[in-house]
């Protein structure tokens, strides 16, 4: 038996379906072109690295981590970030409906593009986002070479 060709998607009009298809295709293309720039983190947390000639800024999203639980160490050109995200302790009589937030320990070691002046490293933890600013070691900065006239 023949069915109404427009009826097989339920009550939605073909125009709705076309619009949905168009939006899905847009999303697919956007994802393919924009997300390919993102690298896959080696482990938790994901980090972004910003650079200029003077140094590096490393940022990481660490929501719910206590500042005291974050440990940062720098040796030469190697940055190590470790810590732990503590789980919520549920009291008697509280029960989970949904649990998506994860907890546990993390540790990440990162090789920076140059040596760091480790005495001048600064870290700020604000709104659950960590900013570590790592100035380049003075001895490691590029020297400008003056060109003399012969």
């Amino acid at each position, binding site marked *: 038996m023949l069915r109404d060709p427009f009826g097989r998607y339920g009550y939605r009009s073909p125009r709705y379906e076309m619009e949905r298809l168009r939006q899905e295709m847009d999303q697919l293309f956007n994802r393919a072109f924009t997300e390919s720039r993102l690298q*896959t983190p080696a482990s938790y947390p994901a980090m972004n690295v*910003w650079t200029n000639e003077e140094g590096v800024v490393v940022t990481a999203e*660490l*929501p719910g981590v206590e500042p005291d639980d974050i440990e940062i160490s720098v040796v030469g050109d190697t940055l190590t970030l470790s810590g732990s995200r503590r789980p919520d302790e549920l009291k008697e009589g509280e*029960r989970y409906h*949904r649990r998506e*937030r994860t907890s546990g320990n993390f540790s990440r070691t990162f090789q920076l593009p140059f040596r760091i002046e480790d005495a001048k490293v600064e870290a700020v933890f604000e709104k659950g986002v960590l900013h570590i600013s790592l100035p380049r070691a003075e001895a490691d900065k590029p020297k400008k070479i003056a060109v003399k006239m012969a």
Partner: protein
Amino acid sequence: MANETKELQVQDTQKQEVTSMSDAERTRSRKAYVPRADIYETNDEIFVVADMPGVDENSVDITLEKNVLTINGYVESEAPENYSLAYAEYEVGDYQRSFTLSNQIDLDKIEAAVKHGVIRLRLPKAGPAKARKIAVKAA
């Protein structure tokens, strides 16, 4: 406790983008992510906890319409001045998530707090809706 020794995994770093068709198109030209959330309940209250790094008490909107609770978090770009992005593993965007609440909530007594990029909502249940027992009469 098993939690003490657990290591966070790579998949814990992934953010899920908002893709829902049912929502109206967004007016801000930024990505929006679905924050990871925990929901737990006691006899008197429901707690909603969501990870929204980059959000503070001034950049979050919470609305409750009928039984739909919506959390919107707006995050400004975090680019440090005079630096260029050399390597990226995550993107910054807004947060958006809605929950349908099954119990009647006392609208006036909702409390919300943000700390270290985590929002915590306390939703007290309205008095009459608290686990009401229905007496069954014999016919």
